[in-house]
Every structure is written in C-alpha cells, then in structure tokens.
C-alpha cells in the first residue's frame, strides 16, 4: 500500500484517539471521534478559489464530528448541492458538506480540510481528484498517488 507508515492500524488499539482541529483564531474547534478517511487532494476550480490553491480533504461520518466551538463558523452555499464552512473571524477554510445526501446511501458524511487538523495527523493520501481542472501554475509531482479526472476516470 502506498503511504504505509508507522501509524497505528485500525486494529492496533487507537480506539482512544480523537483527532482535533480548528481555525487560526480558535473561533472554530472540532473533534473527530473516529479515524478520518484517507486524504484527497482536489484540484477543482472551486477549491482553487476558496483555498486559493489545492484543496486537501479528509472526511468522516457527520455524527463523528463534534464542534467544540462554532462561535465564528460560517457557511457559504458554493453550489446548489454543497456548502463550505469557514471561520468568519480569521478566514480559515474548514469544511465541505454535500446538501443532497440520501440516507439510503449510508450515514451522512462531512469533509474536513486536512490543514485544519492539529499535528500530527497520521493520515495518508489516497488520491488526487479533478486533475483535469488543475491550475497550470503548478505540477503535482511524481508522488505515485492515484489521479482521477472530474469524471472519475483513473489516469495514473
């Protein structure tokens, strides 16, 4: 497996670990009670605008995310089907949440910017997505990570 490292495996007794994170100013703080999902780097134009570069997201069941402080958390409807959460005081980008989640598809998820997590995350990167929408001002680099287009096609 790519990204195999020394992190404790899911069978290895990390039941007690809680992943915490938040914005720059502390107006938003959260805890995730389960191991967050592997990371996707998103090269879409919306992430590029909002994060002003590549988006980096992990995810978790919505029920596993506990907001410890949400005094400054603000939501922006970035499309008809999703909203983005950020801190209105310091501008840190925090969450992306689909609005049209069907309960029949399983428990609702929320995605969380990896950069908002407190170090060390112990998380690994799973894939690059929307690579066909990538900005031309940077290269992804030879990282060996799977790359997918906006249609889900695996291109590397």
């Amino acid at each position, binding site marked *: 497996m790519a990204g195999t490292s020394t992190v404790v495996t899911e069978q290895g007794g990390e039941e007690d670990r809680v992943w915490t994170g938040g914005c720059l100013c502390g107006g938003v703080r959260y805890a995730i009670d389960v191991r967050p999902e592997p990371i996707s780097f998103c090269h879409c134009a919306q992430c590029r605008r909002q994060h002003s570069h590549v988006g980096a997201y992990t995810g978790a069941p919505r029920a596993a995310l506990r907001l410890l402080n949400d005094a400054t958390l*603000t939501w*922006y409807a970035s499309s008809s089907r999703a909203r983005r959460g950020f801190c209105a005081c310091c501008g840190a980008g925090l969450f992306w949440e689909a609005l049209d989640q069907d309960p029949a598809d399983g428990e609702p998820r929320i995605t969380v910017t990896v950069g908002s997590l407190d170090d060390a995350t112990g998380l690994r990167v799973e894939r690059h997505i929307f690579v066909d929408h990538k900005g031309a001002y940077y290269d992804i680099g030879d990282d060996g990570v799977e790359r997918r287009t906006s249609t889900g096609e695996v291109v590397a």
Partner: protein
Amino acid sequence: MSGNGNGREGSGDQGQALSGGCLCGGVRFLLAERPDEVVNCHCGQCRRFHGHIGAYITVPRDTVIFDADETLTWYRSSDFAERGFCGRCGSSLFWKGDGKSEIEIAAGSLDQPTGLQTLRHGYVEGKADYYEITDGLEQFPGSAEVE
C-alpha cells in the same frame, strides 16, 4: 491577450495582465504588474488559513487595483502581518506584512491561466506529516525569498 506566439504557459514573461478574485465575486482585483513566480509556503499558519499549503505571488501593493472589495475582511494573524479573506465565501486571498510595500496574493485566486510557474518551497520546516514534496523544486527551511 499578447498574441505574440512565444508566450508558452509557464514562461512567466507574457504581457497578459492578471486578474483575480474570490469564489463569490465579492472581491475582485487587477494587477498592473506581472509577478515573476509562485512560491509555496508550508508554514502552520498558511496550512490553517488555506486548509493546506499556501501558494503566493508577491507584487507591489500600489499595483493591485480593486474592482470589488465589499466583502474583503482582514485578520491580524500575527504581530507583524494581516491576512485578507472574503467574509462571504471564505476564500483565503492575501498576506500583508506590516510596513512592507508589497502584498502577497494567493495564486489560486488568480483567473486562470496565469502563465506563472511555481519555483520554490518556503518554510518547509513547518510542513505537516500528511504529504511529501515531490515536484523537485528548491526547498528552504525558512523564507524562500531571494534577492
């Protein structure tokens, strides 16, 4: 568009003026001068602000012309700098050091394509554990500013 035929994407010497803004359009700007390059920042503050690494150009402040700034909000992120973002859509846009004549603008806020190239990585000492730098560009433990 310059139309001079030699402005290959990434050559950095095109005559095309750059413009940019946030996701919702509450902040829009034009740049009267073209920057030379994009420099990535791996510091912990950029990571929180952008949700991942920062990627910045640097231009003289007086060459940034705002068409819209109604939602532009400033946050004092340290005792020597402020960060600018859109208070409506949360786009993370600017870094402004106190007393400096220049402003740093996050490259993803620019309208694409830019013709710019990323050249260096700065503050790699602050890099997080969840990614590696694999593009072969020069890395600096602290500031990547060059004279």
